[in-house]
């Protein structure tokens, strides 16, 4: 275990820790709301995992500053690969040169996670609705008690 490895990965390890805490709450807790909370934490941690992947050191959010936006039409400027650098230099536009210097973090994880968050809240809503219904029917939301009631029946 080298130091670079540690500094390169400790982010992920904390995210793993968060995920596992959420997972633990889901499988260990018998209260239904607590289970749903656990699920929430689990999912938020996965979102963090994805977002962590998209980050580039020294990068910035994938939002094009107003000055540059609109000028890069039709260009194939590359923010990272050095083999493309000469193309960029060819351009007379000062803005374009600026654009090449700005490093953007990868927007795709963000896009995916927007979807995932929405899916997560949909699941939560459905789960909560089920809990309300179960609580009406059984008068409790503790799984152990409910199983006991069903067994007695």
């Amino acid at each position: 275990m080298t130091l670079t490895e540690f500094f390169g990965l400790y982010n992920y390890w904390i995210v793993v820790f968060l995920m596992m805490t959420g997972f633990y709450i889901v499988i260990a807790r018998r209260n239904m709301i607590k289970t749903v909370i656990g699920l929430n934490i689990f999912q938020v941690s996965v979102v963090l995992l994805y977002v962590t992947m998209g980050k580039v050191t020294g990068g910035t959010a994938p939002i094009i500053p107003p000055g540059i936006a609109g000028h890069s039409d039709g260009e194939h400027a590359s923010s990272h690969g050095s083999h493309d650098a000469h193309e960029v230099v060819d351009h007379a536009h000062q803005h374009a040169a600026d654009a090449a210097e700005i490093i953007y973090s990868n927007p795709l994880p963000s896009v995916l996670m927007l979807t995932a968050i929405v899916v997560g809240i949909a699941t939560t809503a459905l789960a909560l609705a089920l809990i309300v219904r179960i609580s009406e029917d059984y008068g409790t939301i503790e799984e152990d008690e409910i199983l006991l009631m069903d067994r007695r029946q």
Partner: protein
Amino acid sequence: MLVSVSILTLLAVTAIAIARIGDLWAAVMFTGIFSFLGASWMLILDAPDVAFTEAAVGAGISTVLMLGTLALTGKKEKPTKSSPIVPLFVVGVTGAALIYGTLDMPHFGDRHSPVQTRIDPGFVEKSQPDMHGLPNVVTGLLGSYRGYDTLGETAVIFTAGIAVILILRREPKEKETERSTGKKGKSL
């Protein structure tokens, strides 16, 4: 660096607090805080769109929904009797597997990782001509390349919506029988 380390630490502490706390009301509040902390970290990770959504949805809507549910059900969690050893073991194994899996991963922020280099030209460059210079690349992507996912996402929300209606709506008749049988529900 310091900020991110402290946020990460706080996240971990909050998560443990949620796991241990027996009062559901407090747990829900902590969940809101967890989401909020997560959102701030996302901001640091250059994902403002996700951060805003997480803050709104995770810290906002879901907290409200949970509080609403709590109001209908009850605030105290009964202590769990079953031993935590099996869940701990499962979680331990899963976590260990994940840590093991990170060992071959590109390091944090590595600009030569496949995530950054596989798609060339990258989304930012590609989307500029395709989206006619829409400044927010994330929004552009949501509507274009991953537009179909967004449609799916809408379908998920729609599904959840009608599902909630379906689950919570009670028939007048159903309620009566419920009452007459002393809320015991119907047996098989």
